[in-house]
């Protein structure tokens, strides 16, 4: 008896003439942790932002549970020094968050000693735990986390993923995560989606880690290589389009045109 929280069918996205996502299918059920992995520029953040309605897919049908409550943890949260904001005041921004509940949740994420500290003084790991505390207070159906372990050391990452898994267990929500640190994320994931503009493979982490597409995408990177070379059943040309074997460029990630920052530049600056 699985309850589908959100799904998108055949999502495609183009940024200034360049295809960023192509025919991506994605579904998150209640009680499930789905992780999107993929190299830089694979369109992971774009996919997530499209699902959240922050950017619009050119094609694709999003279906959501009625009155779906979504909590979002953005890739970077930089709170300007100009605003005096303590940890507890930050959490009070969640509508209907009571002080007693805030204290309780801060204990759960082990930030209770920092209740009165300024959010700007928190370390990377503490800030991520604060964001998870905020997620818990929102009591969401679906949690979307964009690179939740960014700027956190390895031990801290393990704790963070355990915390995320425990949030799923305790509050019975669905979790959609973006990551590129595979090993740590594998343990806390039910389903992995390997994205490189299109979905390369999807399935249970154990199965995925043996999948040839996954190995070709990440196998060499694990040995400390910074540049991946693809050996797919297809190749990508210099525009990132899928072309038959032998007719494309072998490593499109290296070409400047394919390394993408499209999603962040699409955000509006304010005046």
């Amino acid at each position: 008896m699985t309850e589908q929280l959100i799904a998108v069918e055949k999502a495609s996205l183009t940024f200034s003439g360049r295809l960023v996502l192509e025919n991506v299918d994605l579904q998150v059920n209640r009680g499930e942790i789905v992780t999107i992995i993929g190299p830089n520029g694979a369109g992971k953040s774009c996919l997530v932002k499209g699902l959240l309605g922050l950017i619009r897919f050119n094609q694709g049908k999003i279906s959501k549970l009625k009155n779906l409550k979504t909590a979002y943890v953005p890739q970077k949260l930089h709170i300007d020094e100009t605003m005096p904001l303590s940890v507890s005041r930050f959490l009070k921004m969640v509508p209907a968050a009571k002080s007693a509940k805030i204290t309780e949740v801060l204990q759960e994420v082990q930030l209770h000693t920092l209740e009165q500290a300024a959010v700007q003084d928190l370390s990377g790991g503490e800030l991520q735990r604060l964001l998870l505390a905020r997620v818990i207070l929102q009591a969401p159906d679906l949690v979307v986390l964009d690179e939740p372990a960014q700027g956190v050391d390895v031990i801290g990452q393990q704790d963070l993923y355990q915390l995320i898994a425990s949030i799923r267990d305790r509050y019975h929500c669905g979790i959609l995560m973006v990551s590129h640190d595979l090993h740590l994320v594998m343990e806390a994931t039910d389903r992995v989606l390997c994205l490189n503009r299109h979905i390369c493979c999807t399935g249970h982490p154990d199965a995925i880690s043996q999948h040839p597409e996954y190995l070709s995408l990440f196998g060499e990177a694990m040995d400390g290589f910074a540049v991946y070379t693809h050996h797919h059943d297809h190749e990508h040309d210099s525009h990132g389009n899928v072309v038959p074997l032998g007719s494309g460029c072998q490593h499109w990630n290296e070409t400047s045109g394919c390394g993408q920052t499209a999603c962040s530049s699409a955000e509006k600056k304010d005046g």
Partner: protein
Amino acid sequence: MDDFIYRALFAGLAVALLTGPLGCLIIWRRMAYFGDTLAHSALLGVALSIMWSIHPVLGVALLGLVIAISLVWLQRYRDLASDTMLGILAHTSLGLGLVVIAILQSRGMRIDLNAYLFGDILALSQNELWLIFASVLALIPVVAWLWRPMIAIAVHEDLARVEGIPVLKIRLIFMLLMAIVVAVAMKVTGVLLITALLIIPAAAARKFSRSPEQMAAIAVLLGMSAVVLGMYSSLQWDTPTGPSIVVAAALLFFVSRVRKKN
């Protein structure tokens, strides 16, 4: 003391009540330059109001709205940054304002440019004081209503959007609010110094505050102190009132910076 001094004092205190929290939001959203642009455009607003014989507060507020919408429209072009666009809007409207006023003057209309540029709070009429009171009373609930969503947007715009805050609508209402406040505060410091009244007390309050609400309250107190100090020194040494208020606010700011960070 004479009536005109009381009127000036009450007008200044009432305006400070509004500019305190508004100034905080402007600082957090980094919109000081937008405030400046509105202020520069105010002169054109005054000129057009005289031309079409409408109330200057209405003219200035309407032109501010036009400026805000132009900015949102111009921001779609990504090959130029926001501050460049603001600079263009600010100086276009200031230049245009001065040209229109010169034309009106050459047609024999008497316009005291200095009063608009630097304020003429001591010449406030009883009706103008009532107008300032009414505006402040009407706008404080708007600021209170905007407070929570504006803080959420200042923290993270995308996060606010995911959580259901209508970001674009709130931003537009906030810009409109700023335009009206500029129009109302024009009498106190003049168009050239309005931004000072908005940002200096709020900036001075930063060091003493530990929460957004505290910062707003302290900004109100510092703004009021600047009004009192400025008016006192203006009467004492016969200096222009608006600029004296700004100098007093600046003094408070520099004193706040000397204090060690807690």
